[in-house]
Structures are given as C-alpha cells and as structure tokens.
C-alpha cells in the first residue's frame, strides 16, 4: 500500500463540490456586523445576519466584554469541570435561568455543541426519538449519536407526530420529541403548544431548539415556549447567544435535574475549554439589555411587519414565514442567484437559497430583518427589490 496518497482525495472531493456549485464562496465582512456593513469592500444593507436585535453593537454588551478582559483576562485556562469554571460562567447561568423563568441553565460552547452533546445523552437503546424532518443539522447529529429508535415525522405535522407517538408508545421505554422552535429556512414556527400537550399525554420529554425564537418571540423575547405559554410542559429549551443575543455560545434551560445530568454527561461540555471572560460577560450583558430595554424586540417586529407588508404589496411571494426570517420566493435557482447578485450590486446583502438546499422550484432569497435597520434602510432595500424584481420580470 506504499502508493497510498494521504490527501489527494480532499481536492477531488472539493473539486466535485465546485463542479456541482455546492461549495461555499466566502464573503469577507470588514468591520462589525451592523445594519449597514462593509462586505468585500462594499457598503451594503445587511439582510442576512442572525444578529436580529443588533446587540453585537450595543454599548453595554461591548463594555462588558472589555471590562471582563480587564478583571479576568483573555482566556479561562481550562475546561469547566477542572479549573475553567469562573464566577462569570456561574453568574451567566443564573441570569439565563432567571430570564427563561427556569430552575437552572447550563452554558455550552455553542448551540451546536449543546444539541450534539445533550440529545445524544437523553435517549438510548430501547428509547425513541421523534424528530421533525426539517430539524437543524446539529439536532440530526445529536440524534445520530444515540442507539434510540429514530422516527422522523413530517414537518410541523401534529397528526404525523401523534401517529408516531402511538407507535413509539408500544415499545419504547423513554420517548423524546425534538423540534426547532422556528425553522430557519422558511421562518415558520413549530406548533410547540400542540407538541407539548400531545407529548405530555404520552409521558414524552419535549426538547425545543429555540435558536431563532429567542429574542424574537414570546414575552420580552423569551422564546417560543413563552409565545405558546407552555413553559412547564417543555423540559428542555436550547438556546444560543450567536443570533438575537449578538455574541456566541449555547445553553440549555430547564430543571436542576436537567442541569446536573447535562453537565455530568455531555461530552461536548466536559471535554471542551470554557468560554473566555469577554464572551461570557457579554452574554450576561445581552440578557441584561433584553430585560431592561424592551424596545429592541418591538423594533424588530415593527421593521418586520413593514418590510413584509411592502414586499407583498410590491407583488412578491414571501412563503409561509411568521417571523423576521423573510423568504422571497423566486422559483428557479438561476433567478434566485441572479437576483441576489443584483441585490449586492445595488447595495443589499441577502443570500440566495437554492437547490439542493431547498426543492428545485422553491429557490428563494432569504432576508433576515434586523431591529437596527432604519426606515430609510428598509426603503432602500425595498427600492432595490422593486427595481430588480421588474428587471427580472418577477413582479409586474
């Protein structure tokens, strides 16, 4: 086997991705992620960041990061279970629990690490996991690490979920139901109220990944469980600081039992260095801002309503979105790509989502509305949409 080549397969694989246009072409953000950002040297209206509330630029959040570096240094020195558990981490977890009105919370490196590390520990051989077919990849990876029976139910289909629960009920010991709260491709919301009630009648544990619902839905941005008033029926809420909260890091919130179990069992938590002081303190400050300045969530929704209403009156199809994630449906992939390129030329940054990420006839541009956008920014973006829509005969 001396002529084995250790690396050439990587290039071959990469080239095949390029040939199918499935490779990522990275754009470079020069400066902060802001309502108007500099991307590849051009100032553009940002319509594709997850920084819903623009908290990444909030003075209190930035100040907290600077202060923490002064008091605690640049890094944490270890994993949490050994010597990297700082007072800042404990303080943040108390603040998360208070904000989410839960007994306890556990801070993970990322939402991804939370899903991969915790779901994999919540079910095993003889158990069943019921999972929405459009759940996020980090959930899929977490589920794949278990020996549980995996049942994939149709997207947001409570009837299918009920059938699956009945089937699982026959043989499974534990049952875990997992769903995104808000689905990031279409901006649609999971029927979390019905999921919670149905699961309760089967004694199933409910796990909601609220990455896109936090800071967006519910009382004061408390997320999808609060939106449906079913907090007590949801045993695990996973959230992230990488989106509306404007920093980075994931967490789970729930009971003390959940926290105790999760921190002793999640390998992604036990075996990965803890967050640096700047990040941790910035996350606490972001929660502070959410609790004390309700105007950001309000602004996000008024911007969203305005933007959506105007798009619809221009004649665009915005799909089934119920949140600030606003797809503009364009049909075929070539049109969506062309549309996005033209938007960029006109100073609007919004990504096309094309086959194979979505079905062939469902190509779209995905816009994410931001609380930091001024009316003028939205009007400029809408003017670009109108111009290009007519140019490409998408609207009359």
């Amino acid at each position: 086997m001396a002529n084995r080549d250790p690396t050439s397969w990587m290039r071959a694989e990469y080239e095949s991705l390029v040939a199918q246009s499935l490779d990522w072409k990275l754009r470079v953000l020069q400066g902060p992620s802001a309502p108007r950002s500099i991307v590849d040297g051009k100032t553009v209206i940002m319509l594709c960041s997850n920084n819903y509330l623009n908290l990444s630029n909030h003075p209190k959040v930035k100040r907290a990061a600077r202060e923490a570096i002064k008091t605690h240094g640049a890094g944490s020195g270890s994993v949490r279970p050994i010597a990297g558990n700082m007072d800042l981490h404990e303080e943040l977890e108390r603040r998360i629990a208070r904000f989410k009105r839960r007994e306890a919370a556990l801070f993970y490196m990322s939402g991804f690490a939370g899903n991969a590390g915790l779901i994999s520990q919540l079910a095993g051989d003889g158990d069943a996991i019921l999972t929405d077919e459009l759940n996020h990849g980090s959930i899929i990876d977490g589920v794949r690490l278990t020996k549980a029976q995996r049942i994939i139910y149709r997207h947001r289909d409570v009837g299918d979920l009920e059938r699956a629960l009945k089937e699982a009920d026959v043989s499974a010991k534990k049952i875990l139901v997992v769903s995104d709260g808000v689905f990031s491709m279409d901006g649609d919301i999971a029927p979390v109220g019905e999921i919670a009630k149905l699961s309760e009648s089967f004694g199933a544990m409910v796990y909601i990944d609220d990455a896109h619902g936090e800071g967006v839905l519910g009382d004061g941005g408390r997320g999808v469980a609060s939106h449906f008033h079913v907090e007590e029926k949801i045993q695990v809420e996973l959230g992230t600081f990488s989106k509306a909260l404007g920093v980075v890091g994931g967490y789970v919130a729930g009971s003390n039992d959940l926290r105790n179990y999760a921190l002793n069992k999640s390998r992604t938590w036990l075996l990965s260095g803890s967050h640096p002081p700047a990040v941790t303190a910035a996350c606490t400050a972001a929660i502070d801002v959410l609790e004390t300045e309700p105007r950001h969530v309000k602004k996000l929704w008024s911007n969203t309503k305005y933007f959506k209403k105007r798009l619809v009156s221009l004649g665009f199809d915005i799909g089934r979105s119920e949140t600030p994630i606003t797809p503009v449906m364009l049909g075929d992939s070539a049109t969506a790509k062309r549309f996005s390129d033209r938007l960029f030329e006109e100073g609007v940054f919004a990504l096309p989502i094309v086959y194979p990420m979505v079905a062939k006839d469902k190509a779209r541009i995905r816009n994410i509305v931001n609380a930091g956008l001024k009316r003028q920014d939205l009007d400029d973006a809408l003017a670009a949409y109108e111009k290009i829509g007519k140019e490409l005969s998408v609207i009359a």
Partner: protein
Amino acid sequence: MRRLGFIVNPIAGMGGRVGLKGTDGVVDEARAAGADPVAPTRARAFAETILALSRGDPSLSIRWLTAAGPMGMEPLGAAGVDEERCEIINRPPEPTTAEDTRRAVEACIDRGAELVLFCGGDGTARDVAESARDRAPILGIPAGVKMYSAVFAVSPQAAAELTLAYLRGRLRIGSAEILDLDEDAYRRGEWRIALVGTAKTLVEPTLVQAGKLQVAEVTEESTREELADHFRELFAAEPDTLFFLGPGSTIASIATVLGLEKTLLGIDAVLGGRTVAKDVDERSLLRLLDQHPKAKLVVSPIGAQGFLLGRGNPEASPDVLRRIGTRNVIAVATPAKLAMTPVLRVDTGDAALDEEFRRREYLFVLIGYRTSKLHPIQR
C-alpha cells in the same frame, strides 16, 4: 462530446388504446383494432425538449447512437436533430422486433454509450435491461401500456430534463426493478405482474440537511451500509427469529453488504445472520414457519408503483402473511426510493388481509440505521 444511446420500440403503446394490456405478441390484433403507434410522437417530444433545453450550452453536445428508421433516426430527425450528430449503429428491417431492440442496445453500449434512452413500456424495458446487463444506466421515455418498472421518467419532457441533469453531473446511478406482466399467465386470463430483474438507472442524489445552509449528499452506498448495520444488529439481537428477506434490489444490496448471497427475485430465509433457505416458494415458506413460528418478513416497495406486498412476491401469500403476522412485516427503503414512492401499495389478493394493512393508513418504513418514517398506504 457525450455519447448517448437512443432506441425506440415503434410499436410500444399500441395495445392500450384498444384495451389490450400490452403489445407483446398482439401487434396485428392491435393494428386490426385500429391502434396508432404512440412511441414515435413520444420519442420526438423527448428529442425536441432536449434540443430546446440544451441550446446554447456547448458543454452539452451530444452524439446520438441510434438505429436507422423508426427505431431512432426517424423521430430524432423529425425533432430536428442534426444528422451529423447521429451515428447509425444498425439498420433493422421493418417490422422491427424485440430482437432488434436487444441488438441495438448491445451495439450502442459497445460503441461507448454512457446512458441508454429507450422509448417503450415494460416489455421494452425488460429487453433493454437484459441486454444492457448493468454496463450502462438506462432511462425510459414512457410510451407503453404497462409501466410498472422503476426506470421510467414521468413524461418525455421529464426524461429530457433528467438526461440533461445527468450530463451536468447532478444525478447518480442507482438500481431499480424491472417488472413486467407475466404473459403466459395473462393469456390464461390471469393478470400478474412479476419482478423480472433490475437495471441501473438515474437517481436523484439524496440530500440531507447537514447544517442550516448546507446540505450533504448521502450516497446510496452509505444508506445501504446503514441499513445493513441495522439488520446486522437485529439478526444478532433476535437469533431465534427467522427473517424472510423479500425480493428487489434494495434488500439484495443490503444482503450483499452483510455478506449474504441473496436471490434478487425471490425470498430467502435468514436465521442468526445466516442464510438457511434460498428462493423459497409458498410451500417451503409454510414449512419453515412450522419449524420457526417466530418470523419476520422484510420487504421493500417494488417498481414505480411502490408495491410492498402482492406484486413481485407471490410467495408471500395471504396464508404466509397471516402466519407471520402483519405487525412482523418490516418495510425498508432508501430515502431516495421513498421520496419517489408517494404511497405504499398492498395487493395480496386477499381483501380482508389488504384491509388489515390499509386500516393502519400509515406504515413505518425503515430508511436508515434505527431510523424510520411513517409512510401512507394507499386506501
């Protein structure tokens, strides 16, 4: 320059208009009853779509390997395909026969066709598959009376789109079942569709969401590996359960991964991970069930219509199914296959038994390691 085979069965589809179940062996009868050929117009529509969709894309320059006359050159010419782009591989005398189809398929694969397009029905598909012998994928332009085989596009236009997608590298090659009417049984007055073989054909890659803006392709092989892992564990966990492995390419390829030599068209019995009987008929199935009352039947939807039971596996008779128990039927499919199968069909020939399945409305289909999805059963 891409080399594609193009073979038309000019008499395909004639029987349908006059209430015959196929045109095999009954052309004169069909003609006498006033049937017009369907295939030439379908073949031409396919070629016209290809021309329209590939215009202006030099990377899609195609060289057609085809037969002279109505078996290829005529419809291509009628659609406006330049003669210079065609290579005549044989000149069958008219009227053409199944033997001409077989010869033409052999000839175009020998001359380097990377895909063989054919226009016809199940009978043609069978001839083409048998001569292609998995040396090249085949794709059917639908023009027959019966089209149960899973190698047909839904329309001539769709066949053209699939061909171009394949040339652009967007499709994969997978295997699919060829089904055909059992002609002898039919002449005796019985309508029975039998699984007669498999062929390579074009399949959509199965894409899974691997991140919110990213998808990854799962190959058919990796799905099969996963399903094989599943059965390996199941066989080990239930060493005294007799597993009957049903017909079709999905189950055969899972068995291959497990190191079992599986008959493609029949039912084999596996105990403790070892094959204990091959290609069993109904009598032997019942005898085996006497010895091993604990049994499970593994079946996969077959052909374009998604028959789970009753077509292609008559050995699993109503008696056998009752003995095994409908709850012990394990349906399995790759995600790609399931995506192409809108409903599962059950037609055991026993109305009460069919009803027992249909009442459930949905059936679990195993699509990966310990992974299943509920899929509707046709009412």
